[in-house]
């Protein structure tokens, strides 16, 4: 290459020489060379393929979710009072807010889709075989954590959809034997959904789960490198025989091309069809028909078939068995045969599970459309969402907002007293209707608790502390003072 050393002694091109020296400066100190070697020179038996891109794309999506998530947190407040307002602020007011939020929301769907593709590829290629059990299990754990991310993130906007879907989701936990109701209360931070639920979901979504996912991704990549790339289905998973190609450049290129395509598709969706925000959660709404995110629809539909005491079968027994089947796959299927057409039972079970999921998902949509009552309610909910999105952003009145209470003074003595209060400039320090200012303390509420005699005495002869605060003895006729005291007593 042009920037190699020049053994013939000719002066090299200066800028290349400089680049090379900078590279070496870093290499000597932090070992860039060995790092690059470690990262990029992984041998792939049988060469680079488009089928192998999904893992890298998932990593890329996770990074994208992290970045968009951190930015969204700039304006988000995880309390039941403010969450929805802050979301509306992000979507309706903040520059690029709707786009970023959509990128994050669509990104979560993309993660689920690519995760399923990654799983399918690994399964069909038999790439979990040959001492790769721990690698497979770490992948399954990542799948579970990512689904938990989707579940916890779904509540955070605190709109109708989020609230009711999560109510159902947390209710399901109560079906778990023995610890069910404790588990549900643990998730909710109490018996009912509320601001503590939101805090919990927020902490899970932003701190705990991402931390666990980061650690597991590191473990997953490490274990993958330890086992080595499995190569095509015809390859021996333990002692690969095919000629190898390094990860860089062709596989890196393929991975990057798909990742960039992915982000472009997400960007186009986010730009042209941004995610909508519904009206604020209203726990009193009894009409609302909750529907989960699309990838939970199969489970949602599935649960319809298990009624009453049988629901434990649908919520706990069958999902547990399925999880055991999936996680334990490399232990049940121990042959080294990888070609899918030689593994009819395994592939058959996989296809059956996928077909079931797709059918249930479709059935859920279909049944909603067939039931006129539900179809009508769903249409109404969509309409409410559309309406809310069209409304301009309405800022939330801060609790510290100070507005003088509109005191309706009925007692005639108090009415006369108010005139004296304003005339004597009591309001100059104690504020309109005694709300207080920075020059004088609040009277409303405080004076009402004192007796008329006590107030009269304080007005005529203020305490040393009051005098220190610039309060002067009130020198008005007894009659007027009586009216003033009546007015002060009426300030609530």
């Amino acid at each position, binding site marked *: *290459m042009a920037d*190699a*050393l020049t053994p013939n*002694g000719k*002066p*090299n091109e*200066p800028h290349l*020489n400089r680049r*090379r*020296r900078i*590279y*070496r400066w870093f290499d*000597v100190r932090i070992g*860039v*060379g060995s790092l690059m*070697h470690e990262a*990029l020179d992984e041998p792939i038996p049988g060469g680079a393929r488009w089928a192998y891109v999904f893992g890298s794309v998932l990593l890329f999506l996770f990074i994208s979710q992290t970045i*968009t998530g951190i*930015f969204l947190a700039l*304006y988000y407040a995880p309390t039941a009072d*403010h969450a929805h*307002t*802050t979301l*509306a*602020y992000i979507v309706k*007011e*903040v*520059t*690029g*807010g709707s786009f*970023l939020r959509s990128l994050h929301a669509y990104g979560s769907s993309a993660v689920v889709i690519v995760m399923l593709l990654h799983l399918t590829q690994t399964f069909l290629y038999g790439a979990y075989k040959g001492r790769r059990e721990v690698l497979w299990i770490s992948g399954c754990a990542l799948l579970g954590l990512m689904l938990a991310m989707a579940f916890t993130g779904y509540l955070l906007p605190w709109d109708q959809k989020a609230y009711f879907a999560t109510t159902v989701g947390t209710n399901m936990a109560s079906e778990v034997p023995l610890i069910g109701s404790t588990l549900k209360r643990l998730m909710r931070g109490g018996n009912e959904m509320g601001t503590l639920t939101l805090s919990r979901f927020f902490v899970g979504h932003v701190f705990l789960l991402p931390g666990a996912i980061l650690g597991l991704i590191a473990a997953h990549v490490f274990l993958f490198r330890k086992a080595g790339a499995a190569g095509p289905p015809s390859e021996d998973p333990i002692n690969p025989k095919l000629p190898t190609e390094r990860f*860089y*450049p*062709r596989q*890196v*290129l393929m991975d*990057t*091309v798909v990742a*960039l395509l992915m*982000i*472009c598709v997400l*960007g186009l969706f986010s730009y042209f069809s941004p995610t909508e925000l519904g009206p604020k959660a209203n726990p009193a709404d009894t009409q609302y028909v909750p529907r989960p995110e699309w990838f939970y629809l199969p489970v949602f539909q599935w649960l319809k078939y298990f009624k009453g005491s049988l629901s434990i079968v649908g919520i706990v027994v069958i999902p547990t068995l399925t999880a055991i089947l999936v996680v334990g796959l490399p232990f049940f299927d121990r042959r080294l045969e990888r070609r899918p057409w030689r593994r009819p039972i395994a592939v058959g079970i996989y296809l059956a599970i996928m077909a079931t999921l797709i059918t249930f998902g479709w059935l859920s949509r279909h049944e909603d459309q067939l039931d006129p009552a539900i179809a009508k309610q769903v249409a109404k909910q969509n309409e409410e969402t559309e309406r809310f999105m069209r409304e301009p*952003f309405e*800022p*939330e*009145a*801060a609790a510290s*907002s*100070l*507005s003088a209470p509109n005191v309706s003074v009925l007692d005639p003595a108090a009415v006369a007293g108010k005139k004296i209060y*304003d005339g004597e*400039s009591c309001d*100059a*320090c104690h*504020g*309109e209707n005694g709300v207080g200012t*920075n*020059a004088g303390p609040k009277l409303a509420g405080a004076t009402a608790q004192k007796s008329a005699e006590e107030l009269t005495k304080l007005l005529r002869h203020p305490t040393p502390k009051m005098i220190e605060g*610039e309060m*002067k003895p009130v020198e008005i006729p007894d009659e007027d003072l009586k009216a003033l005291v009546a007015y002060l007593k009426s300030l609530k």
Partner: protein
Amino acid sequence: MNSSPTSGEGRTGAAPPSQVEVEPINRRSFLGVLLGFGAMVVGAALSVPLLRFALHPLLTKTTDIGWSDIGKIEEFASLTAPMKKLITVDQRDGWRKIVSEKAIYVLPAKDGVLRVLSPICPHLGCSIPWVEAKQQFICPCHTAIFTLDGIRVSGPAPRPMDDLESKVEEGVLKVRYQYFRQLIPTREVLA
């Protein structure tokens, strides 16, 4: 720089220069450049909305106090003394608004122009009442006295009472409520 190749080599010390670090440089191929370029373009394109999102509060003025309505202009047409009015001030703070009630004085019109005064004493910030009997503004704290026009007569105030920016829009008198620095002879808006 145009340094001789041997000086660069000498830095690797005992390690033979040929095998270790030449490889990644050699593999910096056309594809690598393409990749880097593509990633940079997409990265730059994506960082634009991210930056605009993060800089939103700097690009828009959300903390500014806007105009508050005082009342219909006819109401003040025949004033003979300063009239105290309560206005509602909405102050935006990101996604919240802080609503507060403030008192102001509308002065009798001079040549058809209405003036609006802040009731806050430029001395130490007490609210100054209009004393009908004496036809003067008299601060209850340290007895700074001002005329009907807010001009200082006596007392510790360092300057006249502060004017508030006002305008008439569609027959409604509006004011922009502001606070001013105390104890100085000039009127200076507090941010």
